[in-house]
């Protein structure tokens, strides 16, 4: 049974076609890795799947809801960890969780038991009253994952969840995600640049480049079809070796500046 169905999805920004007529399905309970070079259209696709951007054309069904027609029902069905941090750093870890619980309409009783359970799971319960601004990158990520799971979503979107983290933390997060999808039957939709990670955890993989899906299948079938030994070589065989340039929006520049300011 498929939980996400994407049909002829297209997004144009003026003349630029960021996502070009893609179709795919994600089955319930699987870990689906969405791979592609910088600027291939991964994040744009995720934004359309999660109601943040309206598609130019095409239909997306998530958990049985048309994402454009039923945005609030769709939003209740998924959790998301964004590529950039999306925590309020002036609040404590607990307050960030509390905020999320209220936004998703959890009862007070349910919220307090789940917040505890999830913060213990990501090993942040003893730091719950610390301000998020004092957290390391890995801790923030873990908190965001805990927050994304708070309302028990059917689908968890992870946009490069391990970017910039050390191997220990990355390992920890992947083990956790794999456990979660097995135990709770949560469907995980993940993008990453680390091919060996996708190879290890994903049930199925789709490769997107220049806004088009160029191959879809299990990691093993991708390697077989490209006659390569690992997913990284398969990926390079499919997308070529040229380095991609990515248009940097003013918002990205601003985020970069914000990061620079924070360091000083």
């Amino acid at each position, binding site marked *: 049974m498929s939980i996400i169905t994407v049909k002829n999805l297209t997004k144009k920004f003026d003349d630029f076609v960021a996502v070009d007529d893609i179709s795919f399905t994600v089955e319930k309970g699987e870990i689906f890795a969405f791979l592609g070079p910088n600027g291939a259209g991964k994040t744009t696709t995720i*934004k359309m799947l999660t109601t943040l951007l309206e598609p130019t054309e095409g239909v997306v069904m998530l958990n049985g809801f048309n994402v454009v027609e039923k945005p609030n029902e769709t939003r209740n069905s998924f959790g998301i960890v*964004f590529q950039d941090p*999306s*925590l*309020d750093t002036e609040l404590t870890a607990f*307050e960030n969780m509390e905020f999320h619980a209220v936004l998703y309409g959890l009862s007070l009783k349910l919220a307090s038991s789940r917040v505890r359970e999830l913060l213990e799971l990501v090993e942040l319960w003893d730091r719950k009253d610390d301000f998020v601004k004092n957290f390391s990158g890995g801790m923030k990520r873990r908190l965001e994952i805990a927050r994304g799971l708070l309302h028990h979503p059917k689908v968890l979107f992870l946009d490069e969840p391990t970017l910039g983290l050390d191997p220990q933390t990355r390992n920890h997060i992947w083990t956790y995600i794999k456990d979660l999808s097995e135990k709770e039957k949560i469907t995980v939709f993940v993008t990453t640049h680390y091919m060996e990670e996708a190879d290890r955890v994903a049930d199925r993989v789709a490769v997107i480049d220049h806004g088009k899906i160029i191959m879809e299948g299990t990691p093993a079938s991708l390697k077989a079809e490209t006659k390569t030994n690992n997913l990284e070589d398969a990926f390079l065989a499919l997308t070529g070796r040229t380095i991609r340039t990515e248009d940097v929006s003013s918002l990205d520049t*601003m985020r970069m500046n914000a990061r620079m300011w924070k360091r000083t």
Partner: protein
Amino acid sequence: MYYARVIYILWLRQLKRYVRSRARLLSSVAQPLLFLVALGFGFGPIYAKAGGGDYIQFLAPGIITMSMLFTAMFGGIEVIWDKQFGFLKETLVAPVPRMIIMLGRTLGGATVAMLQGIVIFTITLFIGFHPVVTPTLFFAPLVMFLICMLFTALGTAIASRLNDMQAFPLVMNFLIMPMFFLSGALFPVDQLPRALGIVVRLNPVSYGVDGMRSTLIHLGHFGLGLDILVLSVVGALCVTLGAYLFNGIEA
């Protein structure tokens, strides 16, 4: 009930952020205080000689309005900040109508601005401001609330359309500053040159200043009724516009 809780948590967040930021608290008190002391005591003697009476008495309601105007606009513009630090996305993917998000934020920002106004009001009492005690004094909180809602909503509306902090000085220099200086916060508006008089009449801040003066020192130019009417109507327009533009944000 669910929406009420959402509005409450958004409101609470704005308050927590305000109370926790000591730098913000301090600087938001320092500027109005500087205006009060420098202008109040600097121009006081001339103002008295010209037959205007006690300038501090005249100036204080204007400065209280100024501090609320600035805090409210900044509170609204904080939306850009949330875009920058990514937190806005967390609220935009939540299963809550955007209208509710905008209302909660605006109420929170307005409450912060009102607290700010009350802090400055308290300070003015110590440097020689004496509110005139009449029944209209009871309307002061209403006028303050209307001012704060109007400008928080206006700030939110503007910020919904802007993507980076570069635009911030632009808003400051071409909107907030002119609105403040051309509002009669610093000078009486009854004998202005014609052109300036028209600008003052078109400026919503003027009605805020006048409303504060009417309620605090019983000295109004437009009349308290008109002040409240203008602030309510423009405020409602700004909230509607803010909600509309906020709804259109694409992350």
